[in-house]
């Protein structure tokens, strides 16, 4: 009962759609979402979370007099769907004379695409008991010293099926398999406490199956995380100075997300988010001319990368998704705006109108947002630095509501002197201002430094929506950055 009919069976939705005959409705669309999320977590070798959540409902959207209205419901019988459509139509009609833009049916283009995540090891192949046993073993391996006071290991898998039908001929589906894993060791010595994780807060997030969890290097990573936690509690504080900064890909993902992704969202530029997530320093006239970063900077919106977390074939407005450059050789050329934002702003955008589930309307979101690799190896990058800090793995983030001034913190730092790594430093933080920071980009790592990451936790929108996004990047070198350590 609580699994959606097979992806190519649209009979329930189509039958309901045929029977609507809704006066004053110019267009009706229905997006049915069935999502099963399973979260397992072990702390200090004991089960902590073993939970499954199944969410299933339908978002009914109606266009009337140039305004979209919506009604989302858990009831999926034809009568309830009709009732939802009436509510959505009534919402639209009441708002029509006050709308921000006169939308038409061309803002919901028909699509017949189908998409499915690819995977090697399906989620069904591992039982709850087997997964708990692996997570417990990770905790045991992490606990290599009495100074390790807490160990955590977790895996979260999400299976989502989306069906999309509309009165102008959409009949499309997408099936996603998403996996997020993490483990962490917290070490304490005296009054110093330090935590090290496997890629940051849920940073190891991919499309696919268990092949992204039990990788050949899993146990080496476990060893390294424990070792580095122990290193950090006896490390010196990161120095406070203006210096060279190398960011590894598991911090670059956050840097890209906060200082490129959010400011380029066209709904923010249009002011939709002013009351919540914030605005953007980017102005419409900046597209095509703003030197966002150095000429080494090439940023793409790429929903086609096979195992990246937010790949898909079409967005939740039914627009087919393609790879596009947003920033080319440092120049801003395209924004992150779906078909509605493109119409309102007259700016070039992408297929990124996404909703977190059946119970929220689509808004402009990041999907896969990547910095393309350059030509410098990590060794050459380090060798080029007289003095600087290498930072790895995000742990803290804060940026102003125009996405200008930021301060980010990492778990793990290395001091570089005369082209060599000399020691570990703890509490490495840095701050900057977006455009000057990206213009201080001096070297971009080659494909050997490239890392693919993601996060299930990008928050935005009113009502609020948490959505998954992917980010991939090489290591990068920035110059003249203000770095500093933790509290005294």
């Amino acid at each position, binding site marked *: 009962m609580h699994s959606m009919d097979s992806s190519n069976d649209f009979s329930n939705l189509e039958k309901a759609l045929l029977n609507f005959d809704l006066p004053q409705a110019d267009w009706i669309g229905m997006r049915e979402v069935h999502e099963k999320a399973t979260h397992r977590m072990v702390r200090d070798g004991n089960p902590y979370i073993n939970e499954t959540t199944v969410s299933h409902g339908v978002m009914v959207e109606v266009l009337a007099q140039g305004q979209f209205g919506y009604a*989302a419901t858990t009831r999926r019988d034809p009568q309830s769907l009709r009732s939802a459509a009436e509510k959505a139509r009534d919402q639209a009609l009441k708002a029509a004379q006050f709308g921000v833009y006169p939308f038409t049916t061309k803002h919901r283009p028909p699509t017949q695409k189908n998409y499915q995540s690819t995977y090697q090891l399906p989620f069904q192949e591992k039982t709850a008991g087997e997964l708990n046993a692996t997570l417990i073993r990770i905790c045991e391996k992490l606990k290599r010293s009495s100074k390790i006071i807490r160990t955590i290991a977790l895996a979260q898998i999400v299976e989502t099926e989306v069906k999309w039908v509309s009165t102008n001929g959409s009949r499309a589906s997408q099936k996603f398999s998403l996996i997020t894993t993490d483990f962490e060791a917290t070490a304490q010595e005296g009054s110093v406490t330090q935590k090290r994780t496997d890629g940051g807060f849920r940073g190891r997030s991919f499309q696919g199956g268990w092949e992204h969890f039990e990788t050949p290097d899993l146990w080496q990573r476990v060893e390294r995380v424990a070792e580095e936690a122990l290193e950090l509690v006896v490390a010196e504080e990161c120095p406070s100075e203006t210096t060279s900064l190398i960011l590894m890909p598991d911090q670059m993902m956050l840097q890209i997300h906060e200082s490129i992704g959010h400011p380029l969202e066209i709904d923010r530029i249009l002011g939709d988010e002013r009351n919540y997530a914030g605005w953007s320093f980017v102005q419409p006239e900046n597209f095509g001319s703003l030197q966002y970063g150095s000429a080494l900077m090439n940023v793409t919106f790429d929903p086609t990368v096979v195992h990246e977390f937010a790949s898909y074939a079409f967005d939740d407005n039914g627009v087919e998704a393609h790879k596009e450059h947003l920033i080319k050789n440092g120049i801003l050329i395209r924004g992150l705006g779906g078909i509605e934002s493109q119409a309102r702003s007259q700016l070039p955008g992408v297929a990124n109108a996404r909703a977190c589930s059946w119970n929220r309307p689509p808004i402009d979101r990041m999907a896969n947002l990547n910095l393309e690799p350059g030509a410098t190896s990590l060794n050459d990058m380090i060798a080029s630095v007289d003095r600087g800090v290498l930072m790895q793995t995000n742990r803290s983030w804060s940026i102003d509501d125009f996405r200008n001034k930021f301060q980010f913190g990492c778990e793990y730092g290395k001091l570089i002197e005369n082209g060599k790594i000399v020691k570990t430093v703890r509490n490495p933080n840095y701050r900057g201002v977006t455009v000057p920071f990206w213009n201080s980009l001096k070297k971009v790592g080659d494909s050997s430094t490239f890392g693919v990451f993601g996060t299930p936790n990008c928050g935005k929108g*009113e009502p609020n929506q948490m959505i998954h996004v992917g980010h991939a990047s090489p290591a990068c070198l920035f110059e003249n950055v203000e770095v500093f350590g933790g509290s005294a």
Partner: protein
Amino acid sequence: MTLSRSALFDPEYFDHLNQYSFGLLKPKEFLFLSLASEESQFVRLNSAKVRQTGTVQDSILTLSLVYESEPGRLHKNSYSLTLTGQSYEDQIGIKEAVRRLQTEVRNIPADPYAELPKDAESSHFEKRGTLLESSEVISQLLSPLNKTDLAGIYSAGPIVRAMAHSEGQKHWFYTENFSLDYSLYTSSQRALKGTFAGANWNPDAYAQEVRNAQKQLTLLESKPIRVPRGIHRAYLAPAAVFDLVTMLSWGGIGEASIRQGDSLLRKLRTGEKQFSPLLSLEQNFKKGEAPRFNSEGELAPEQLILIENGQLRNSLISSRTAKEYGIASNHACPSETLRVPVVAAGSLKEADILKELGTGLYLSNLHYLNWSDQPGGRITGMTRYACFWVENGKLVAPMETMRFDDTLFHLFGSSLLGLTETQSFIPEVGSYEMRDLGGMWCPGMLLGGMTFTC
């Protein structure tokens, strides 16, 4: 608003599902049920126009199964599913959920800190409101604006939180409320923030709220000044205090966070650091803004003193943490986060705020706070909305956005000079997954120094 009479808001329907669920249990099995339902109208506004408008009917039932394989040896898992309010379909879903839980729970290791249901007090709370008719919302929201640029979200409708367990305990919490979380903008895009919320829509009160906000907006018309980085005296309005105190829910006030090395309060407990004697914080459910019960049915004390005159008197302790560390629970929710915190008022009169501030920053709101060194209590964030530079007790001009980076031990410690004699209620208006309940009562706060970095 014409309220739904859906079964999802009927305690008898919840009873019906409870009895059905408990009837599926096998020997040595115990079941906790938690229900969260809402029927919401959302109107999203930008430039005082409608960006998006719609309704959401949602309901999630969480079943947590505990299996006692041997006396005292407990295995636990949970399964959540959306409910429709249609009995036949919901029963099929519950039956499948229980079957899956029963199969899985025997396949996972014992959880030494799981708890069996306790025989305890049940509760029933209902608060009806007078909400706007759905068809009137947009015209009522927009009519007093008179071309003022507004962005925000109107949310309204009934909310249910309920729980029951197989040993007979049951709690029911039903409320009807609305909120307009908004910001108003000048032509130069300076903004001020407000929230108009409650259980009974009052058009006159709303019109007055808009008039007051429009009047304040004129203060933001002048050109903003750039304040140099450094340490400045500051007054934090209640909404800004709310943001600082909320950080204690991010691995601060929870006992597990203190024990496991995350929390800054470890240093407070050991005496390594101190808060000011002016600071007192409690959790208080007396006004009914949020349910007292947690997902295991435990009732939190109606009033719990957390920090008294700068001393840590209590942390939030869930039963799981209590069992792990051999201490007494105060029936916190499993996440050990603040639910209805109250920061004690002080003696600073509203009329004296600017005079007492002298020269410094008046901060209406903060934004995007995060720990930059969590065990050290170091925090960073931004100023936002109506913030002003004040000289000799007079507002001089709005200020450009600034970043601060300071420790809570400093801000709530040696820097704290005073708190206002009145408190404001700052409602929780978040809506990730579902609309939040609760909020914080807090006063404004006068600081002798706050560190701004850029």
